Every structure is written in structure tokens, then in C-alpha cells.
């Protein structure tokens, strides 16, 4: 982390358009520092998920066109082959999706799913695998016993499922975790638990997080910096404090206004996250 601020973990400058349509992302430029939590906020349709998929190289290449560069660990992700990208996915960059239940394979036991994720990047013995699985599950505060591993996704709660997904994502200690609306489908309590889990993981492992959400309030609690994505472009980027205290862009101001507040004292701005 010594040179963390001198060279960013990931720096991107990209434009994406789908065939025959106006561009989804227009010269989007941002950086993520090592160990940093960057929030990416925008309403649905603003191109958030496209951005996440672009970083992972999972955009359908036949129907989309990407320009620009995404530098990660000294290499441009856009120039890597599928094979090289696959080696990065799950190992260096991990993804957690929005809906935990549909993101887990309904036909497979938890053990099998974790094992598959582990085997994608490791070729150690079965014991190594079990060890990695146990550690990951402990990290997300889930039981690591056989009973739990034998469960199917349908036999778990939403919160548990999301934790399993996160455990799967951190199995290989990635340098960057992309959470794409990872808490949006959860109830408020579970949401806050998962948010603190992210924060905790960020602190304990030094893993950078790109936290994508439409909900500015939920982002505030864990993010070091926030970028506002509007109509395919980043309209404002700054520390959480800056954004909340002094939003420049009209769209950001609208977002701010939409956050429900608790009026603690007149004229004193309090952001929603602090109320939690």
C-alpha cells in the first residue's frame, strides 16, 4: 500500500456503444486506488452494469463496441485475450451481482458451487479447497460445516445467499471486487449487514471495491469516493464528504434531494448514512 496513491489499481477511460444505438458510456474516466472503496452511482439505464461488464470483459463482443483503455496491474484489459481475461476473473477481479438467489445455480449444492469457483483458478488438493472454502465462509460469517455446504440455494435465506456469493468472490483474495447493485434487492437490515461486511472485508484484506448502486444513501456509508454516472458519462467525482457537502452537478443535487433525511437540527446537513 506504500505506493498505493502514486499508481492506481485500475484506471479506465472508455466509451461503449451497442450496435445501432447511441453510446451507453461516453468517455467515462475514473480511477480506483488500491484498498479504496469507490462508489458508482447512477439511475438504472445509466450504464452502470455495462461498465462493470466492460471491466470483466464480459460484454457481448458481437453486439457492442468498446473504445478506450482499462489499465489494471500494468496491462490494458481491453487488449487481453479471452484466456488471459478468464485468468483474471474471479482471481484478481471478482463480481457480486444484485439478486443473490438467481445468481446462485439452483441445481447445485453450495459446496459444488464454491468448489467450481475455487477450481477455476487453483489446482491444489481437496483439502486446500476445503480450507479455502472454510476461510471464505468464516470471513462472511457463515457456518462452514458440512450441513451448510450440503444445502441448495433454495434452502437458504436471501442474506445467507448473498454472503455465499461474497464468499465465492473473495475465495481467491481478489485485488478488486465489483459489487453490482449487490445490496439493492435486500431488506434494509440485511442490506446494512452486508454493507458492513463489505467495509469489514475492505479493512481486513485491503481489497478495493467498486460499489455500483442507484442508491446514493447506501453508498455513502462505505465509500471513500463517489462517482456520479448520468446518461453514460461521469458528471461528478469526489470524496464522499465533498459530494454530500457540496454537490456541483445538477443531477447530483437531485440525487441528494431525493434522500430521506432525519432533521436533527435546523440548517445542519446530515447525510442519511450517518443516521444508521
Amino acid at each position, binding site marked *: 500500500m506504500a505506493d498505493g496513491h502514486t499508481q492506481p489499481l485500475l484506471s479506465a477511460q472508455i466509451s461503449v456503444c451497442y450496435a445501432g444505438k447511441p453510446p451507453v458510456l461516453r468517455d467515462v474516466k475514473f480511477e480506483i486506488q488500491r484498498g479504496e472503496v469507490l462508489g458508482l452511482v447512477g439511475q438504472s439505464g445509466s450504464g452502470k452494469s455495462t461498465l462493470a461488464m466492460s471491466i*470483466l470483459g*464480459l460484454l457481448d463482443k*458481437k453486439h457492442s463496441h468498446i473504445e478506450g483503455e482499462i489499465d489494471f496491474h500494468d496491462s490494458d484489459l481491453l487488449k487481453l485475450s479471452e484466456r488471459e481475461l*478468464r*485468468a*483474471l*476473473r*474471479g*482471481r484478481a477481479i*471478482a*463480481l457480486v*451481482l*444484485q*439478486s443473490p438467489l*438467481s*445468481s*446462485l*445455480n*439452483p*441445481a*447445485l449444492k453450495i459446496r*459444488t458451487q464454491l468448489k*467450481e*469457483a475455487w*477450481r*477455476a*483458478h487453483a489446482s491444489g488438493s481437496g483439502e486446500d479447497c476445503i480450507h479455502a472454502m472454510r476461510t471464505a465462509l468464516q470471513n462472511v460469517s457463515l457456518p462452514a460445516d458440512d450441513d451448510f455446504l450440503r444445502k441448495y440455494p433454495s434452502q437458504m435465506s436471501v442474506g445467507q445467499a448473498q454472503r455465499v*456469493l461474497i464468499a*465465492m*468472490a473473495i475465495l481467491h483474495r481478489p485485488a478488486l471486487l465489483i459489487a453490482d447493485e449487490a445490496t439493492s434487492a435486500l431488506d434494509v437490515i440485511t442490506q446494512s449487514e452486508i454493507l458492513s461486511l463489505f467495509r469489514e472485508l475492505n479493512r481486513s484484506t485491503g481489497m478495493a471495491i467498486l460499489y455500483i448502486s442507484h442508491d446514493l444513501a447506501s453508498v455513502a456509508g462505505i465509500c471513500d469516493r463517489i462517482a456520479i454516472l448520468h446518461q453514460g458519462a461521469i458528471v461528478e467525482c469526489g470524496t464522499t464528504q465533498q459530494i454530500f457537502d457540496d454537490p456541483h452537478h445538477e443531477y447530483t443535487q437531485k440525487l441528494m434531494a431525493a434522500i430521506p433525511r432525519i432533521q436533527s437540527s435546523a440548517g445542519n446537513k446530515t447525510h442519511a448514512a450517518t443516521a444508521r
Partner: protein
Amino acid sequence: MSLWQKLACAALVLVVLASFAANWLAPAGYAHQYREATDAPPSRTHWLGTDELGRDRFARVLYGTRISLLLAPAAALLSTLLAALIGGIAGYLGGAWKRAAMAVTDLFLSLPWLFLLITARALLPLNVSPLVSVMVTFLLLGLLGWTSAARVLCASAALLRGSDFVRQARAAGINGRRLFWMHVLPNLKPVLFAQFWISIPVFILSEANLGILGLGVAEPMPSWGSLLKELEGLVSVGEEPWKFVPLILLVIVVTSFQILLSRQQEVAA
């Protein structure tokens, strides 16, 4: 296990055991012609009577069960696997693959099967043993019976391809082949099961009909198909009820399998 499942299980065990004890239960064998007692009603010596050539129907049912119960599921398995591979992979890969596979399926469905089967028969030597003949027939059925299931599987696989868990798995760096085997294929199970169970009775009957093309089980060996053919010319149900035993057996076996399997599917789902 419910009562029905127990019953189904018992019925299957009984049928399988009986068919494998055929040598002992029906020592006369399926080919011996009691020419003085043709088309006889049930008696102490012939429990289900004899057929038109005086062969013991009970023995023929047991030996026929052995053939059909082994080979029809094998052919059903083959066709299901083909459907899974062709439909499933094409749907999973999508794009040009999917279009190509569907074109092949359409072509397959539109081919004049009768002529192809006649050609297949022409390519086979005339001197093949009855067993080889019936095995070849079921193999052909297995190789040809996958098309309609492939279409369903292709559509299902295409849906799965865009699902969250497949995207999540790709994001975990899992490669294409394992994605298909571990994440797509297991979720096609219900369709595969349906294809498998529908195929069995269809294949059993098709085997009998292919006799017209010189395929199917050859005389004197029996199969359920050839036994069911006996019912073709029957005028009334009441007169000779013992002739319906093969049909009843077929219904019992297929139903039993389905009762047992519907449970498995529930668990898997």
C-alpha cells in the same frame, strides 16, 4: 416414500426379477412351437396360452420384457444425451451455433425417414442374429429420436445462458466447458427427464412398427413391440383378455418408472 412409490418400486423389482428368471420360470423357451396347441387359451402348462404358432406366451412375455426393458431405456438415454448435447450446447453457445443446430434439427424433422430406414436396412446384412437386429433398431431409434427434445432444450439453454448465475459463474473465471456441464446442463434436467420417459414407450412401439421395414426384433425372438402386434387383429377385448398382458405390463412398467421419477424430480427442483 408414499404407498404408490412403494407399489411402483415393488412392481418394477418384480418385473425385472421375473424377466431375469425367465429360463427358470418358463423352461420351454420363447421359440418352442407347440404346433398341436396353437392359439390356445391359458392352461396349467401355458399360463398365458400360446400364440398363433403355438409358442408359450408367458415365456415370450418374460423374454420380451428382458429385451425391451434393457434396450428401450438405453435408446431413450442415447436420444436424450444427443438432445442435450445438440440442443443444449447450441442454445448455450447461441448465435450462429444456435441457428445452425436448429437448421439441422429442422432438416432432420423434414427428412423422409421411411426411405432412410429402408436404406439403413439395405446396408445391413441379411444374416444378422435377432439380437443384433433389435439392438441396431434401438440404436437407430436412439439416433433419430432426439429432434423435438433438442428444440426445447435449445430454447431452455439459451435462457440459462443469459441467467444471473451463469454470468456470475463466468465472472468467477469458470471456463466454457465447465460452465456448460456444471451450470447449464444440470438445470436442463426436467426437460431431459421428460424426454427420457416419453421416449421409452414410443421407442417400444416404434420398434414393433419397424418390423415392416425388416428392422426390429427378428423371429423367433420376442420383444414387447412384437407381442403388442398380436393385438392388431383382435376384434373384441372380452374374448381373449390374456392377450392384453403385454400391453398391461408396458403400462405398469412405464407408470411405475414415472411415479418413482417424479419424486426424484421434485427433490432436484
